[in-house]
């Protein structure tokens, strides 16, 4: 469909597409009324809206059409609608009751929207999955798909696939959402799988007791579920009870397998009530009330299904041919979804292209290690970002969504160029190269258009930066606030509203984090920010900082106030904003690529067996538990449900000893120090000593074993030896580690970059999994804590380190004919630092390798001590704090591999740049130059410069993030933010911003926190800096730590209090105090002169005094000094302007608007400008 010039004729001709558009428009009035219905109405589904209309709503229209439409509406509307456009803006801003919306032209260039949407849609359904009839048909070719998400619903049993449930009103149905190799989306409804749990059979229980037991439990559950029963739920709660031989995971069971009752429930939500009944006690038949621990009763139904069917997250599954049934798929191309709830048995229930029914027995998993099944399906990824117009932090009730940018990519297919970049704007927007611009006058239509884009592109994975806690909830809240209820349908389920709920995620490793979660069934929501926060330790997690860190790319941070300006400007300024918005959507997608998140997470899901969505939303526990249960299933082991009382009740987190064993002998070692590391220390200890739940011998049973059957750990706990029973954990670990070995070997051989990425992701996942097992046993609030295992593990570790130290020192000494005595200077969790004493790096390596082999022989397999590297020199500050140059190659002629730093304050952001730069320089001088004198001299010079005000202001900036202003104690950055808000509310920092500040000298007795000041203000007003603060609070501690091992405390004292600290200069402030009364006089610029030039002499020269003027040498030098300074400032300024624009990847033809306090170049530019101006003023005095 061509637009613009043809529009009028189209309208007149009313061709088929125009008619469609018209159809959409004519029904807009009722729709708007429906949308205006008070929010909270539970069923916002608008009945007279169908797929076609939704498409039509977005259909391209142009101005002529538009105007025609407006006129049409004016006839229907009251006259106050005079200025349609103005009104629209107002309406959007104040969330007034909606009125019929009028679209501006929707697209850039001459691109037709309907066509665009067709190009975004998934590939057509291949023949073997098509069903053009109106009834189910049997699929006659195997259906293979990569499983993306998995959940369950409750539905009537399928007439053919779950015959055994015929007559039950409702059965659980597992939904598997997947993607095929062809890129088609599939939803498989899996029937017949039943929820269950175990209890140990009561004493003397016989098969004859089963019916009585079942009925008794059924009745008790029925009581608990009475309210549910009245809603027509089944009256059969406990479907079946069977006797099975099982064994508890916990403790060595000398008796072996014993009878357990498998209790099969009708619906998953009945497991919990049944469990608590069993735990509290059940009386059945003539027996006494009987209470017991339940087993595997706390497993999510979907996970239960996956474990039992051996299906892992992200794995390929195959539906056997002729065993599954394809539902009618009359919807062309898929993706056309509606807000309408499905009606009729055969009507589509999801937005997937293909829906099938299948029995759970007919799904076969494909082993990712096997052949090509490690590949990743062409899943569709949507990365998006929204912009809101707000003063301060946006609030959904007040601030409109003004732009949404979306990046559409297909995994593995469009690495460099996304399938599409789309930006939707409120108000007109100029075209943007490489992007589709869709313009809207009504915010509601903007939101609806985004919803349609989601439904049409049908992403399997939705990503973005902080979308989970901001963008998604904001969109949903905003839609509610402006009465656009039909927006909230973003999931794969037809007619199911997307809502957000608050979740609290708590984990020992990652702390407690509150977050929001939206139901996007069938789509995985992957928030890059959460992933990065979880996987990397960075000083800042703003998109800017993270992108700079990983991509070397920065975006231009646009200040809130400028967003509003750009939005309120014209089509060009909005296009500028749109470009930022696109970039903000593009960066998460690039991070996803760069950090290999798709590969790593899919592999992690495959290794641990949990669905992809669990990886972000849940902790480590579930991953280990999943593996434990999978393994346990094959060994008839069942996991007890210990609830949360577990072993944690005994005390705090650290009831067992920490890991570090050998104190650091701090010092500056110029001789090479070799490190000997235990490979996979904790896993190998657990393997070597057979530490497991299933091998732990109860204290009271120890006496039943002969000494050769058991091993006593250093903590006094007793485990049986593998000859008696091989532990499950060691088995799991062996499998994980050997799988990792294989993956690493394959990785070396592999050439194909995609397969390489998969293998790398796999070996990483395997490593992380192996290491998390130990943590799982030690997590006192976990699912299955067992401190006997974890504390034994660490105890063994400590013992081994101690053992290593003794062996090394006993063997490598002069007494044994070696040239030097060796010394162990430090022992970390899994490594030992050995100074062999030999000054030669290569020789230390040889000794290190030799010692590693020698000592490994003294340990049980598979514990292995490896020689890894040599530090030369090494600066050992204290435990966990050291720095050194690493050598791994005996050929030292090429110099060290790199500098390694642990725990030193070079990267912390709450230190000022001066600290970072001084520490780096000192380390360079100590390690590379091995010149402690130069390092000390350098530090003294810096301190002297600091006291004489010669340090660049930008190095003194400290920054802290402004979070919620609830601090009771006054914090410098909070107080400063308040003061800045009083100066200029528009540019003041908002919550969430980083506030950079410097500490200025305050009045007597003023607190440090009151003396923080905006660096720009300091710069412009020449405010004096509090030098002693920087010396005492910033430099002193880290420098003392670093230098004390080298020069001793006496030397350090001299550094901070020596003669060089005597000379102190302070800047004269430009404002305030006595300056108001000072008379400004020029001082002579002659070298070292500074004589004031009397007013009367200014006519002769403003630059030099009479004395200097007579000396050509002084004149020349005076001029040269000033010129040099001015040139330097000017050059710096020019270069910074260029670099600043480059950093933000600006078009050469626009000015840089960056005023972000988070951008290091913003301040540098500002400072260069002030410096240059100052120098120019001086240069003007030479006339």
């Amino acid at each position, binding site marked *: 469909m061509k637009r613009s010039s043809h529009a009028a004729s189209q309208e007149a001709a009313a061709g088929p597409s125009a008619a469609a558009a018209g159809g959409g428009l004519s029904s807009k009035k009722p729709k708007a009324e429906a949308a205006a219905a008070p929010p909270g109405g539970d069923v916002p589904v608008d009945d007279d809206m169908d797929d076609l209309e939704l498409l039509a709503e977005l259909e391209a229209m142009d101005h002529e059409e538009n105007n025609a439409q407006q006129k049409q509406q004016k006839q229907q509307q009251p006259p106050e609608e005079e200025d349609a456009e103005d009104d629209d803006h107002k309406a959007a801003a104040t969330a007034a009751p909606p009125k019929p919306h009028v679209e501006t032209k929707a697209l850039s260039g001459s691109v037709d929207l309907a066509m665009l949407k067709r190009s975004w849609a998934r590939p057509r359904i291949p023949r073997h999955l098509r069903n053009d009839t109106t009834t189910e048909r049997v699929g006659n070719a195997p259906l293979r798909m990569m499983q993306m998400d998995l959940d369950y619903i409750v539905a009537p049993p399928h007439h053919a696939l779950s015959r055994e449930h015929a007559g039950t009103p409702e059965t659980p149905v597992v939904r598997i959402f997947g993607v095929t190799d062809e890129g088609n989306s599939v939803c498989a409804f899996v029937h017949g799988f039943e929820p269950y749990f175990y209890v140990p059979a009561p004493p003397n229980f016989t098969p004859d007791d089963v019916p009585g037991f079942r009925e008794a439990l059924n009745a008790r559950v029925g009581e608990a579920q009475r309210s549910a029963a009245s809603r027509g739920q089944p009256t059969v709660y406990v479907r079946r009870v069977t006797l099975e031989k099982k064994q508890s995971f916990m403790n060595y069971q000398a008796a072996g397998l014993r009878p357990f009752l498998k209790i099969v429930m009708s619906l998953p939500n009945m497991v919990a009530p049944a469990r608590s009944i069993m735990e509290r006690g059940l009386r059945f038949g003539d027996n006494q009330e009987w209470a017991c621990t339940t087993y595997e009763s706390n497993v999510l139904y979907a996970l239960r299904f996956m474990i039992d069917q051996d299906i892992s997250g992200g794995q390929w599954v195959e539906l056997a041919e002729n065993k599954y049934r394809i539902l009618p798929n009359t919807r062309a191309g898929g993706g056309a979804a509606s807000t309408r709830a499905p009606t009729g048995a055969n009507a589509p229930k999801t937005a997937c292209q293909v829906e099938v029914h299948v029995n759970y027995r007919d799904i076969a998993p494909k082993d990712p290690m096997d052949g090509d099944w490690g590949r990743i399906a062409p899943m569709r990824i949507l990365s998006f970002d929204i912009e809101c117009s707000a003063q301060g932090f946006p609030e959904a009730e007040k601030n409109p969504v003004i732009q949404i940018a979306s990046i559409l990519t297909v995994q593995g297919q469009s690495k460099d160029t996304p399938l599409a970049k789309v930006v939707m704007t409120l108000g007109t927007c100029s075209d943007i*190269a*490489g992007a589709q611009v869709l313009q809207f006058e009504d915010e509601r239509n903007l939101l609806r258009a985004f919803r349609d884009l989601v439904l049409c592109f049908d992403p399997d994975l939705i990503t973005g930066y902080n979308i989970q806690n901001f963008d998604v909830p904001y969109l949903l809240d905003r839609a509610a606030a402006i009465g656009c209820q039909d927006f909230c349908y973003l999931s794969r389920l037809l007619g199911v509203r997307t809502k957000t709920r608050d979740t609290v995620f708590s984990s020992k490793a990652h702390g407690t984090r509150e977050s929001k979660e939206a139901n996007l069934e069938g789509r995985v929501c992957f928030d890059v920010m959460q992933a990065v926060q979880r996987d990397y330790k960075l000083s800042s997690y703003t998109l800017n900082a993270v992108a700079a860190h990983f991509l070397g790319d920065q975006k231009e941070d646009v200040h809130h106030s400028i967003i509003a300006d750009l939005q309120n400007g014209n089509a060009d300024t909005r296009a500028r904003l749109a470009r930022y918005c696109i970039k903000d959507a593009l960066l998460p997608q690039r991070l996803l690529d760069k950090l290999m998140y798709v590969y790593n997470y899919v592999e992690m899901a495959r290794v641990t067996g949990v669905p992809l969505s669990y990886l972000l939303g849940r902790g480590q526990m579930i991953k280990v538990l999943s593996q434990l249960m999978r393994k346990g299933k094959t060994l008839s082991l069942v996991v007890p449900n210990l609830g949360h009382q577990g072993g944690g009740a005994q005390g705090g987190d650290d009831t067992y000893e920490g890991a570090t064993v050998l104190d650091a002998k701090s010092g500056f070692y110029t001789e090479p120090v070799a490190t000997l590391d235990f490979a996979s220390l904790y896993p190998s200890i657990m393997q070597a000593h057979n530490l497991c739940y299933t091998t732990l011998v109860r204290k009271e049973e120890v006496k039943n074993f002969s000494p050769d059957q058991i091993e006593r750990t250093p903590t006094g706990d007793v485990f049986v030896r593998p000859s008696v029973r091989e532990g499950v954990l060691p088995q799991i670990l062996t499998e994980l580690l050997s799988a990792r070995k294989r993956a690493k070997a394959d990785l070396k051989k592999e050439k194909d970059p995609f397969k390489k990425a998969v293998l790398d992701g796999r070996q990483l996942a395997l490593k992380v999994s192996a290491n998390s097992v130990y943590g799982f046993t030690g997590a006192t609030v976990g699912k299955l804590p067992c401190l006997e295992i974890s504390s034994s593990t660490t105890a063994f570790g400590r013992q081994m380190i101690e053992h290593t130290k003794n062996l090394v020192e006993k063997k490598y000494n002069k007494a044994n004919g070696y040239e030097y005595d060796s010394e162990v200077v430090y022992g970390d969790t899994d490594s030992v630092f050995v100074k062999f004493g030999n000054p030669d790096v290569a020789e230390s390596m040889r000794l290190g390798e030799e010692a590693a082999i020698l000592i490994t022989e003294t340990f049980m397999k598979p514990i292995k001590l490896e020689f890894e590297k040599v530090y030369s020199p090494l600066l050992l500050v204290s435990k966990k704090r050291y720095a050194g140059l690493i050598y791994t190659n005996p050929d030292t002629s090429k110099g060290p591999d790199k500098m390694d730093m642990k725990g030193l304050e070079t990267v912390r952001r709450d230190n000022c740049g001066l600290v970072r730069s001084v520490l780096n320089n000192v380390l360079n001088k100590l390690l590379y130059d091995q010149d402690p004198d130069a390092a000390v001299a350098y530090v003294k010079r810096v301190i002297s410069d600091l006291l004489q005000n010669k340090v660049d202001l930008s190095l003194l900036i400290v920054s802290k993030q402004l979070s919620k202003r609830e601090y009771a104690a006054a914090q410098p950055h909070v107080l400063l933010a308040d003061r800045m808000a009083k100066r200029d509310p528009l540019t003041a920092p908002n919550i969430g911003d980083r506030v950079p500040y410097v500490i200025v000298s305050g009045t007597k007795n003023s607190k440090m926190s009151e003396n923080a000041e905006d660096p720009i203000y300091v710069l412009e007003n020449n405010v004096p800096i509090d030098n002693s603060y920087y010396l005492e609070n910033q430099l002193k501690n880290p420098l003392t730590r670093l230098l004390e091992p080298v020069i001793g405390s006496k030397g350090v004292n001299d550094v901070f209090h020596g003669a060089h600290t005597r000379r102190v200069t302070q800047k004269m402030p430009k404002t305030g105090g006595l300056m108001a009364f000072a008379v400004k006089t020029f001082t002579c610029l002659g070298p070292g002169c500074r004589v004031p030039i009397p007013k009367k002499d200014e006519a002769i020269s403003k630059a030099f005094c009479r004395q200097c003027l007579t000396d050509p040498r002084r004149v020349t030098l005076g001029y040269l000094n000033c010129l040099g300074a001015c040139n*330097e400032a000017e050059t710096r300024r020019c*270069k910074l302007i260029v670099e600043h624009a480059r950093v933000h990847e600006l078009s050469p033809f626009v000015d840089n608007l960056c005023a972000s306090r988070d951008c*290091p170049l913003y301040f540098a530019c500002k400072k*260069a400008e002030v410096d240059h101006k100052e120098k120019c003023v001086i240069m003007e005095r030479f006339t």
Partner: protein
Amino acid sequence: MASVSLPPYLPAYVLGSGDSANLAREKDVLVSLDGGGDDECTPLLKRACLHINQSGDSGVRFAGASTSVAARQFTVQYSSTLYTRLHKAKAKFESAIPKKWPGVPVKETLAVSSDATAAQLAAVDAMHQAEEAAGTQSATQGDRKDDEVTEVETEQVVVIALVAKEMRLRPNAVDDAVGGGAGATKLLGAGKKFVHDEDGLFLDDDTGRLRVAEGDVLPASKLTNGVVVAVLCRARATAPDVVDVEDVMFLGDATPAAPPRPMMADDTKDAPTYVMLVSGLSLGQTNPAHIGLLLDFVAGSVGDAAAASRIARVIIAGNSVATSKDDETSANPDSDVANLAALDAFLARLAALLPVDLMVGAEDPAPYALPQAPVHACLLPAASAVPGLNRLGNPISLEVASDDDTSTPITILGHAGQCVDDAWRYLAEDDRLEVLASTLRWRHLAPTAPDTLVCHPNDGSDDVLGMEAAPHVLFAGNQPTFATREEAGTRLVCVPAFASTSSAVLVDMRTLEAHEVRFQSHYS
């Protein structure tokens, strides 16, 4: 080049080059002296006379450079500088394009990519619909994957744009600049190139950006950042922001060459009238004997007095004095003063002989950013008092004519060399003369400013460093060796740095031929 030694007191003027292999040189002149020259001998020559005009169009162009430092304070960024560069070029290109590529539409980058997108979408859509129409009859159809899309022929268009070069090796000024200290002003190591095989090119205009697909027509190694080009190209349908370039036009192809060389209406038409170009005197560093020889030669007391008498003016193209830089720890104020005094004395003597145009260069004690302002008079108290000394900035644009001449003057455009040096770092081309020729073809003295060459932003009224028209003479000072050739009516001259080559260049204003004059003293 082999130098010819001459007997003492018989200064000679030897024609012809000893190095016939070097075709770039036309005629080289060697002045050599064994033994001391006669310092005091400065016979009054009847000199050829040339009148220079600085107030013409080109004279005004660098006026900003000579005004007070107040004008050097600025608040604007570089967007208008570059906008002006593109749009002034655009106007010139627009008349030339229909002749070179008749019937091809000129489009902005945005339109190119959106049209390509539209064409591709339409084609894919047509395919979809054909599939739809074919229905499910065919077994193979419909099993298409996402990435199987047909390539669509896109329209051939002309795009006028500013070149943005991806420079992987470009030194980053930020680390220096943010770290504080003098690092930012540190000069790049001479002789180092920043050319990477994988550097790519982009075409920018105010609507957006296109990436140039790798190809032979417009290789990245032959262009620098900031050049304006017109290209005949097609966008790729599958990657609409990538274009394949089929032909290219530079501003030099779109603007007239230098007008035919006018005749000098001089009384001695058969005799040459020279302008001497010399650069990089670096007083304080250079062998003083060579400087003395230069002075004597101009005075006519050494070498061919007749030839010397034909020198009408001397243009000193920058870097006249060796001064210590601020960031050097070995800054020596006393030597700075001494060197400046030496320059002052030298200039006073030289300007007494004939008119001297003193330009500044990157190393001179003058404002650094381009266009540079002249050296301050207070540094040259004696020479400034001599009327013959004409303190100029950098670059310069002069019109030269005989006093009594009314015909078209000779136009001379030149700079102290940093523009060529900087462009050279980003080009695969190693020959400085070719780099200079490229800047002529691009009609821009310093395309790499402001990106890697420090220059002043301007208000957008003019592209100060652009060439309005092709000059008769285009020179670059402070080059490693002398080189010259003619290109499209313009004499290109690389003026060697005197400190390292001891040579100057004579350009004959009648024929526009250029010769190297070497000064050599066996006393040093």
